[in-house]
C-alpha cells in the first residue's frame, strides 16, 4: 500500500504504466485471430483516516479483463458452423451438378446419339455403315456411363479423404483445447485472476473446431470448457479428450464415417444425423443428399437401360438369322450386388438369394432385409417404406408395388436380429459395357424373324422405340426423363446450397462485426488510451517531483 505523497504518486505511475502496457498489448495484437481487447481495472486504494478526514492512498490495479459479449460470441459460433457446413455442402453439390448437367460429361447427349443411330439402323437395316455407327455410339454411351461413375466415385473417395483429414484436425484441436483447459484452471485457481490470453487462445481453438464440426460448449466453474458433439457425446471434458476416428458405414461400405472412440473400446459411429454443422457435417449431409442419390440413380439407369435393351435384342435376330443375345453386359453382372449380404454380427446361418425379374421396377437405392424371429422385413432405405411377413416371398412387394426382384430361401436358419443388405443396382454404371460378342455390326439383331431376309427392321424399330418408352425406369420414367430428374434434383440442391452460403456469409459477417464491436481493437481508440495514460504518467511523475521537492525543502529547513 502506498503511503504518503510519494507512495500515492508512485501508485499513479504504476497504474499509468499498466494502462500503457495494456494499450500496447492491444495494439500489438490487433491482427491476432480471436484476440479480445483488454482493459485495466483500476481501483482506488483504501483511504486512511488521519485525524480529521479520510485521505486517499492512491490507485491500484484490480484486474486486467477481456472485453467481450458471450451472446455475440455464441452467435458467431452458431453462424460460422452453419456457414462452414453450407460451404462444404455447396462445394460437393456443385461438383456433382456440373458433372451431371454438363453437355460434354453428362449422359443426355450420348443417349440421344445412341438412339439416333438405332433409328438409322431401323430405317436401313442392311446398311453396314449404319450398324457400325450404332456400335460406335453404344461404345461411347457405355464409356460415358463408366466415366460418370468413375468421377462420382472419385468424389466419394475425396470425401473419405477429407473426412479422415478433418477428423485428424479435430483431434489436434481437441487436444490443444484440453491442454489449455488445464492451464487456465491451474493459473486462475492459483492467482484468482482471469488468464485472458489463454482463454482467447482456447476460445479461438473452439471457434476453429466449430468450423469443422458443431460442438456444444459448457463452461465450468474453474474456467474450463466441456465440449459435446452429436446427441451429447463428450468430446472434451476438462483436460481429457475423446479421440475421434474414421469407420466404415455398414449401410454403404464404400463410405467412411467419423466415429468416437468411447471408454471401454466402444466405437460410436457418427452419421449425418449426429454430426451437424461444420465442414464435416456439410460433407456428410452432401454425401447423403446429393452424392449417394446421384450414384444410385446413375446405377439404376444403367441397369434398367441394359436390361431393357438386352431383353428386346435377345428377342430379335441378326443378319445371319441367329438370335440376338445380349447387346450390353449381362444383367447378372450388373446386378451382382443384389445378392443379400449378411451383416457383420449375424448369428444365424441362413443364406438367401435374389433373382432380378424386372429391372424397370427397381427403385434407386438399397434395401435392408431383417428377421425378428417371426417376420422378415424388407425396408427400402431411401424412404423407409417396408413390408413384413413370415414368408420371405411376400416382402418384395412394398406398398402394393413389386420391387422387381424375388428373394429365395437357401440353406441354414436365421436368428432374430439377423439382417442383410441388398444393393440391386450398385456399381452398374461402372460395370456396363458391350456384350462380348458385340463387335461385329452384323450381330445387331434388327430383324424380328430368323427366316426373313436382311431387310426386316421390326426389332430395330422396337429397340429405337425404347427411347420414348415411359415405363423403362422405376416403372414410370423414360431413360431421358429419369436422368433429367436426377439432374434437376442435384441442380436444385446445389442452387439451394449456394443461397445458404450467401445467407450464412452475410449473417456470419454481421455477427462478427457485432462481436468485434465489443472485443475488437480499434487503433484510434488505443492511440487515445496511450495519450491518456501518458498524460496520467506525466502527471504522476510531476506529483512525484513536487513531493520530492517538498521533502528536500523540509530537509533544508531542518539543517
Amino acid at each position, binding site marked *: 500500500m502506498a503511503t504518503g505523497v510519494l507512495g500515492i504518486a508512485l501508485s499513479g505511475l504504476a497504474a499509468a504504466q499498466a494502462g500503457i502496457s495494456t494499450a500496447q498489448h492491444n495494439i500489438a495484437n*490487433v*491482427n491476432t485471430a480471436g484476440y479480445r481487447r483488454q482493459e485495466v481495472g483500476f481501483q482506488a486504494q483504501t483511504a486512511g483516516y488521519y485525524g480529521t478526514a479520510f485521505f486517499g492512498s492512491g490507485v491500484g490495479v484490480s484486474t486486467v479483463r477481456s472485453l467481450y459479449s458471450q451472446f455475440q460470441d455464441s452467435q458467431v459460433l452458431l453462424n460460422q458452423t452453419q456457414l462452414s457446413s453450407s460451404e462444404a455442402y455447396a462445394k460437393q*453439390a*456443385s461438383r456433382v*451438378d*456440373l458433372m*451431371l*448437367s454438363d453437355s460434354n460429361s453428362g449422359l*443426355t447427349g450420348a443417349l*440421344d*446419339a445412341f*438412339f*439416333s443411330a438405332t*433409328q*438409322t439402323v*431401323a*430405317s*436401313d*437395316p*442392311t*446398311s453396314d455403315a449404319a450398324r457400325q455407327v450404332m456400335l460406335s455410339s453404344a461404345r461411347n454411351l457405355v464409356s460415358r456411363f463408366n466415366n460418370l461413375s468413375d468421377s462420382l466415385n472419385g468424389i466419394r473417395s475425396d470425401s473419405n479423404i477429407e473426412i479422415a483429414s478433418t477428423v485428424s484436425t479435430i483431434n489436434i484441436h481437441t487436444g490443444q483445447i484440453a491442454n489449455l483447459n488445464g492451464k487456465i484452471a491451474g493459473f486462475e485457481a492459483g492467482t484468482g485472476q482471469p488468464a485472458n490470453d489463454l482463454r482467447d487462445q482456447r476460445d479461438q481453438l473452439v471457434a476453429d473446431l466449430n468450423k469443422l464440426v458443431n460442438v456444444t460448449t459448457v463452461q465450468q466453474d474453474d474456467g474450463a470448457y466441456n465440449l459435446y458433439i452429436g446427441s451429447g457425446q463428450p468430446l472434451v471434458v476438462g483436460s481429457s479428450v475423446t479421440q475421434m476416428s474414421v469407420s466404415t458405414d455398414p449401410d454403404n461400405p464404400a463410405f467412411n464415417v467419423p466415429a468416437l472412440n468411447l471408454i471401454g473400446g466402444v466405437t460410436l459411429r457418427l452419421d449425418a444425423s449426429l454430426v451437424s454443422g461444420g465442414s464435416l457435417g456439410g460433407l456428410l449431409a452432401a454425401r447423403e443428399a446429393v452424392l449417394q442419390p446421384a450414384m444410385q440413380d446413375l446405377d439404376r439407369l444403367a441397369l434398367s437401360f441394359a436390361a431393357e435393351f438386352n431383353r428386346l435384342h435377345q428377342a430379335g435376330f441378326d443378319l445371319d438369322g441367329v438370335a440376338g443375345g445380349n447387346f450390353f453386359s449381362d444383367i447378372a453382372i450388373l446386378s451382382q450386388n443384389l445378392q443379400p449380404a449378411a451383416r457383420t454380427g449375424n448369428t444365424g446361418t441362413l443364406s438367401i438369394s435374389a433373382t432380378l425379374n424386372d429391372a424397370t421396377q427397381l427403385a434407386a437405392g438399397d434395401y435392408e432385409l431383417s428377421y425378428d424371429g417371426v417376420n422378415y422385413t424388407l425396408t427400402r432405405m431411401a424412404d423407409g417404406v417396408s413390408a413384413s411377413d413370415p414368408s420371405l416371398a411376400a416382402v418384395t412387394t412394398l406398398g402394393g408395388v413389386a420391387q422387381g426382384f424375388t428373394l429365395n430361401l437357401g440353406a441354414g436358419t436365421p436368428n432374430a436380429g439377423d439382417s442383410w443388405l441388398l444393393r440391386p443396382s450398385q456399381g452398374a454404371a461402372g460395370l456396363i459395357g458391350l456384350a462380348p460378342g458385340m463387335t461385329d455390326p452384323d450381330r445387331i439383331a434388327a*430383324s424380328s*424373324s430368323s427366316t*426373313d*431376309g*436382311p*431387310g426386316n*427392321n*421390326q426389332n430395330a*424399330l422396337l429397340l*429405337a*422405340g425404347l*427411347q*420414348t418408352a415411359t415405363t423403362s425406369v422405376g416403372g414410370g420414367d423414360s431413360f*431421358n*426423363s429419369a*436422368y*433429367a430428374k436426377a*439432374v*434437376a434434383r*442435384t*441442380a*436444385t440442391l*446445389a*442452387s439451394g446450397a*449456394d443461397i445458404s452460403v450467401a445467407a450464412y456469409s452475410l449473417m456470419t*459477417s454481421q455477427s462478427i*462485426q457485432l462481436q*468485434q*464491436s465489443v*472485443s*475488437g*481493437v*480499434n*487503433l*484510434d*481508440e488505443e*492511440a*487515445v488510451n496511450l*495519450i491518456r495514460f501518458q498524460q496520467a504518467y506525466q502527471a504522476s511523475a510531476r506529483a512525484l517531483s513536487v513531493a520530492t521537492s517538498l521533502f528536500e525543502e523540509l530537509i533544508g529547513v531542518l539543517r
Partner: protein
Amino acid sequence: MRIDTMTYINISLPGIQGNQSAIARLNQQIAGGLSLLSGKDDPVSAVKALELGNRIALRTQFAANQDKVEIDLNYSTLVSQEMHSALGQAHALLAGISTAYDSALRNTHAEQLKGVFNQVLDLLNTRDPSGNSIFAGFETASVPFVNTSLDIPPSVSATQYNGTAAPGGTRNVEVENGRYIQANDNLADVFLFTDANIVDPVQGGASHDVLENLAHAIINLPLNVGATGVAVLTEADLKGYRDVLDVAMRKLERVQHRIAGSLTEIEDLRTTTQALLLNEKNALSDLTLTDTAAAIVELQSRQTTLEAISRAYALTSGLSLFNYLS
C-alpha cells in the same frame, strides 16, 4: 456504434471479392456464349434445356428418317411408273394383234413383247444405290423375280419368286413419335396373284403369273397349228393375256397410289417437323444462350462498382490517428 480496426479495414473486402467473382462469371458467359454454365445456375431452366435437347435430337432423327423414306419412295415411284408403262405397252400390243394375222406379223408383235418382258423383269429386280433389291420385301440381297422362259431354247416356265412372301416384307420407318410410314412395297402379289374371275391361258386356274403369261404369249404368238396358217393361240387366249395384264396394272396402280399418299404424308409431316424443330431450337437458345448485350452492360456496371469500392478502400485504409500524433 463502435467499430474495430480490422472490420473498418476489411469491410470493403466482401464487396471486392463478390464483384470480382461476378465479373469472372460474366466473362465466362460472354466467351462461351452460354448463360447456363451449370445446372445450379437455374435448375428449372437447366431441366427444361435437357428436355428440349432430347426433343430436338429425336425430332432431328425423325427429319432424317423422313428424308430417307422420301428418297426410297421416290425411287419406287420412278420404277413403278416405268413398270406400269411397260405393262401398258404389252397390253396395247396384245390388243393390236389378231390370231387371223399372218405368222410374220404375229412374230413382229412377239418380238416387241419380248422387249417389254425383259424390261419388266429388269424393273422388278431393281436395286437401290446401296445394292438392295427394292421389291424383294426383306430379302434385299436376293434377285426376287427369276423367269428363264426366254432363255435359249425358249420354254415357258413359271416365275420363281425369291423375296418375302406377300403381304409381308414391308419395312416401316418411324417418321414421328409413334408414327410409321411404309418405305417399300412387295410386288409379289402384283405379278403373282390369284383371281378366279379371269381365265389364264397358261395355268387355266385362278393363279396367275404375269411374266409366265407374257412369255407364253411371246413363244406361242408366232406359231401355227401344224403346216396350216392358223395360229395356235385363240382370241380367247389373247383376251386371257390382256385380262391378266389388266389386273396386274390395277394392282400396280394401287401400289402407286399408296406411295403417292405416303409421299404427301411425308411432305406435310416435314413442314410440321421443321416448324417444331425451329420452335424448339429457339426455345433452347432463349434458355441457354447468353444475352451478350445484357451481359456486357452488367459487366460494365460491375467494373464501375469494383472501381468505386477499390477507391473507397484506398481512401479509408490510410486514415489513422497515429498519423496525426507527433
